């Protein structure tokens, strides 16, 4: 390691950066709410801290090259291995979501489109490839990857996308292929296959990291990962309470650490604090939507560039979006992680995310949520550039209506590309949906 890089990293990430971020947090804590508090609860007190935590993560990334090894990973990847080997871990999907929320995604994706990447491809992938090609990013600078770590448990798209990144960066691609679980149980040979790949990945990652994997450290990371996921699940489950203390839109914003900082002690502390605040809201009778009349489910990715619009529109009509198959995905597998049998439990945990399971399983999850959260309806975001999440929604919607008698809306949009968001059409459809809710 070059001592100049180490000094630069330490100074910026551990001394100067945190001071600046603390100041920004202090300012943010005093800023008036941006979302309409006539219908929505005041922002969570923890929100500026979330921003600080996330900003610090990206700041560390900015100075990582030359000091720490960097891995670019997919959102459902077994990150514990990388954390235990001290990689700086970057999630291109999270970066793309930040670009989406800041409404920069289309500008950045256009860079990829000009290079020939079709507008029919996943808009996260386009945003990320665009950022790699142009250097454009709202987080300062993205570190170059020393390794690309892709796990197919969210989609096959990530494999196609990471193969492109491998060419641009000349970085090795480590693949953890997780056979799709069509039926209730994954086949034994599929779990064995995932486990073998995890074990095979170790020497490759060790070589890149320049160090040996310490099993004790891996266990520690596994414990932290499990604890953070449990806390996240508890927070989500608090929304069974009426009125729901936070909405799914809050969850979308608060989920960044569970995705990109799973396995860090700060993440556990952060979610413990969030849970405490959520409980305080419950004790004080505060609901995320001031006049909660109806409670609905959100399926699929967020529409990042219209979070506020959707939250306010629905809240105006007393509709609280309180449960989501998406945010649930980072909590529901917590019980599967077993730090005492890490390798086997990692193989199982990482084969079972909702996106790696059948369309019938997703319907089952939605049904369960309707019952457990006392839901009156469902919004299924039909996400134009995310096929794995969207295929099946037409049948799922029909079954929700037919079998549970709840109104269900298929809302056409895209998670990051606002060019396919037809504002008027969305407003009309949402209004009709709200009317059906009664």
């Amino acid at each position: 390691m070059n001592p100049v890089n180490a000094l630069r990293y330490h100074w910026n990430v551990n001394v100067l950066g945190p001071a600046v971020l603390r100041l920004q947090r202090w300012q943010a804590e005093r800023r008036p709410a941006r979302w309409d508090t006539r219908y929505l609860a005041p922002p969570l007190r923890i929100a500026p801290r979330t921003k600080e935590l996330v900003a610090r993560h990206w700041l560390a990334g900015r100075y990582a090259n030359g000091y720490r090894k960097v891995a670019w990973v997919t959102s459902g990847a077994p990150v514990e291995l990388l954390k235990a080997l001290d990689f700086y871990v970057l999630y291109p999907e999270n970066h793309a979501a930040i670009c989406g929320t800041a409404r920069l995604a289309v500008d950045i994706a256009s860079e990829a489109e000009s290079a020939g990447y079709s507008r029919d491809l996943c808009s996260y992938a386009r945003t990320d490839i665009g950022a790699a090609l142009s250097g454009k990013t709202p987080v300062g600078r993205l570190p170059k990857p020393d390794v690309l770590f892709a796990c197919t448990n969210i989609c096959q798209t990530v494999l196609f996308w990471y193969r492109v990144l491998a060419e641009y960066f000349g970085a090795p691609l480590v693949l953890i292929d997780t056979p799709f679980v069509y039926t209730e149980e994954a086949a034994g040979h599929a779990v064995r296959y995932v486990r073998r790949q995890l074990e095979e990945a170790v020497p490759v990652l060790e070589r890149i990291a320049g160090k040996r994997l310490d099993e004790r450290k891996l266990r520690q990371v596994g414990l932290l990962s499990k604890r953070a996921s449990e806390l996240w699940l508890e927070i989500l489950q608090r929304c069974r309470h009426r009125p729901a203390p936070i909405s799914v839109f809050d969850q979308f914003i608060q989920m960044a650490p569970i995705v990109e900082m799973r396995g860090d002690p700060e993440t556990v502390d952060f979610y413990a604090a969030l849970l405490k605040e959520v409980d305080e809201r419950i004790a004080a009778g505060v609901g995320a939507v001031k006049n909660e009349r109806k409670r609905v489910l959100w399926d699929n990715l967020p529409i990042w560039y219209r979070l506020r619009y959707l939250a306010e529109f629905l809240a105006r009509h007393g509709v609280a979006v309180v449960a989501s198959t998406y945010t649930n995905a980072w909590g529901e597998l917590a019980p599967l992680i077993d730090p005492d049998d890490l390798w086997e439990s990692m193989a199982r945990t990482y084969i079972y995310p909702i996106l790696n399971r059948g369309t019938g399983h997703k319907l089952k999850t939605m049904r369960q949520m309707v019952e457990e959260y006392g839901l009156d309806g469902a919004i299924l975001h039909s996400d134009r550039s995310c096929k794995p999440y969207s295929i099946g929604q037409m049948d799922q919607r029909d079954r929700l209506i037919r079998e549970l008698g709840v109104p269900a809306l298929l809302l056409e949009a895209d998670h990051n590309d606002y060019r396919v968001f037809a504002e008027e059409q969305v407003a009309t459809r949402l209004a009709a949906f709200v009317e059906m809710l009664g």
Partner: protein
Amino acid sequence: MESAPTIPSRTATIRAWKESGGGIAAVLPIHYPRALLRAFGLLPVEVWGPPRVDPAPGAAHLQPYVCSIVGNALSFLLKDGLDVADVIVVPHACDSLQGLGSLLLDFVRPRQPVFPLYLPRGRRESDRQFLADECRALYGKLAAITGRAPSEEELLESIRREEEADGLLAELHHRRRALSLTDLAFYRLVRAREYLPAEEFSALARSVLDTPPADPRTGIPILLSGIVPEPMALLDAINEMGGTVVADDLACCGRRLYPPGVSGDPFRRMAERILDGPPDPTRGSPITERLQHLVRTARETGARGVVFYDVKFCEPELFDLPLLRRGLQEAGLPSVHVEVDLNDPLSGQTLTRIEAFLEMVAGQTEEARR
């Protein structure tokens, strides 16, 4: 030049097979162990769409941003097009085929059993072991529904039969320029591999290969890449515009020229054959490997340009395209990209683009000669 062989139709083949007491396995794209199905007396009949079906039934289950290969397969099934099948096999290739397999199992539930088959995305030892296990698991499912249990020797015999047919298929591809067939006739012949029993295909291929060689075909030589050359009138149109397809990297053809296996274990050998096939994005082949394969194939066959003929909304193709086109350009091979929907007739716009491309390639060739 035309001396096209008589190829039994899909319908006639299916009827004859059924009459002889065999069953039919309707198989979706792309890679699967033919030999395994045949060992159970099931004739694999592939479903690449098919083109030009009423898309309405499928549209009740699938959003319009799903490719027409998947949409049409579902529409065809819902319109009883797969009634003749005794089992449906859905290999995994992409998010859309994954979704289709899952929809069939959970919601559509056709009367036939549906067997998905997961395809690993690497060529590591773990991938080989997994695919062998996956084939073994499919064996178990087929045994349960057919009541048969082919022996190891029967499985190996079935594999050898397919290997022979694939060897002849590769030979046809290799000698295509010297065969007295138009592009349309050639693709009708090689695509008969999608439904003919291997031994019948082998006999047909042999008869064509044994025909005395014709004068090598003339025309601007191009390489055709993509999923499937539909509508097949495209091929005649290319010939009429002065082009000739001298090689392909089509998912239904050139990407399935599987080499013979080596292992004595039948399941392992089925896996080897699939994983050792030519580069394919749906098997996770690195883009560089695909590029090298395209350049090498073009050099060997004399192709002077590449037509990427893709099905709309096909991620595996679309992700690789920019780097492939850039790499080809650097290697002196121009390319053009067109996208089609299987339900659309061959459009004037598509033809105009291909024609303009052929003219450009011809111009370059002319210039180089001068």
